[in-house]
């Protein structure tokens, strides 16, 4: 496999986010409205600045991209139409595909992966199956016993409110769902 250069990575990230990084003039409005900026190691505008400077690895390795909740406030308020939320998505996708996510970020990544795996198998999310996979893989990655039981007390409460569905739904055309996943997730290069 060809190792991507910085230039390749910038082109890939611009294509995934449908954004030209040079358009950003660093006004900081994205950061001002971001509900997660207080918990970020790099501010949203700083991430875009890193990409303008070609410092892809610093952006890909930041914890901030996993703190983002995709609320789209940054994108909505940008005076230059830089799709900052899509830049976050692009950075997360490339970081995930290249295996750059750290143990600290495992919970977020493994949850999203468990969600997609459940959709790939069933066509729809099966909540119980998804949570089981998330707990097992999360525990294996983090080795924290408490992780297995976080939120476990919610199960009897869900049952009480008739919100616990042990048997998930499956669509009929599951083969097609698997083909869609295979076509979208084929490895490039």
């Amino acid at each position, binding site marked *: 496999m060809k190792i991507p250069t910085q230039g390749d990575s910038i082109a890939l990230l611009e294509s995934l986010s449908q954004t030209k990084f040079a358009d950003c003039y660093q006004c900081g409005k994205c950061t001002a409205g971001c509900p997660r900026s207080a918990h970020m190691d790099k501010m949203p505008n700083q991430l875009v600045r890193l990409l303008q400077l070609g410092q892809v690895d610093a952006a890909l390795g930041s914890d901030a991209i996993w703190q983002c909740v995709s609320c789209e406030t940054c994108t*909505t308020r940008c005076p230059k139409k830089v799709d900052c939320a899509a830049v976050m998505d*692009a950075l997360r996708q490339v970081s995930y595909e290249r295996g750059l996510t750290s143990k600290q970020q495992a*919970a977020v990544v493994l949850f*999203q992966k468990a969600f*997609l795996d459940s*959709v790939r198998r069933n066509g*729809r999310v099966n909540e119980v199956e998804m949570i089981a996979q998330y707990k097992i893989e999360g525990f294996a990655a983090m080795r924290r016993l408490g992780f297995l039981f976080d939120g476990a007390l919610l199960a009897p409460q869900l049952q009480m*409110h008739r919100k616990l569905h042990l048997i998930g739904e499956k*669509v009929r055309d599951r083969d097609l769902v698997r083909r*869609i996943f295979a076509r979208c997730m084929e490895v490039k290069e």
Partner: protein
Amino acid sequence: MNLGYYPGCSLHGTSDDYQQSLKACFGALGVSLTELDDWICCGATAAHMLNRKLSIALPARNLALAVRQGCDELVAPCSMCSMQLKKAQRAMVQDAALAEEMATIVEAKPGATRVLNLIDVFERVGLEAIKTAVKAPLKDLKVACYYGCLLTRPPEVVEFDDCEQPESMDRIVEALGATAVAWNYKTECCGAGMTMANEETVLELSHKILADAAAHGAQCVAVACPMCHVNLDMKQAAIEARYGTKYGMTIYYLCDLVGLALGLTPRALGIDRHFAGRNA
């Protein structure tokens, strides 16, 4: 009025009280729903976080099913689903090559089906018609209308209401005889899909929303999204424990309030299945 219906995974899972409520409420307003046959998940946060192509293909598959099933208008009561469907549609309109690629990936051609959110349906019924149908006006009820993120953002995608100061839900609530309070957190994020993966984020963001609603005299909050409801209702006890406060705030789906004003019982609307608040 008959409309296509895309429930999404939440309304067939943990948030099926939302489906119960909207079906009872729509029934009372003469709106019937035909569920899209064999619909699949929209991909939600997971898809757009980890694979852009998949985040377009999964909605595109549903849009193609809508064409095949002769559905021109599709109600997606979850803000995430409706936004993802509209975002995929827009991406394919703007990029013909992408549209072709998607038709190959999902093995059918997606079309221009109009995607509606919950508020769109009430606006279609009409405020005057709703006012006329009200049997039990919600007078003396002060409601904080909470829109969250994806009903109004990104504005170019969802093309719905004002993205900073939305009023559409407030107008419906007022048509029911209630008072919509003025407050600051209408469009701030509740933490969305981080409920399990990053609970601390949800507690912090949702706490701010509840605190601001309470500070402005709201007795309850109205939402039009299953994730907003999970974070403000199901997580409310955890928020109260974390921040040492007590809100006891009832979180209604907007259709709960419309249904109550139309004379439906809390039980018929599934309000007895909520976690927090006096009516729960």
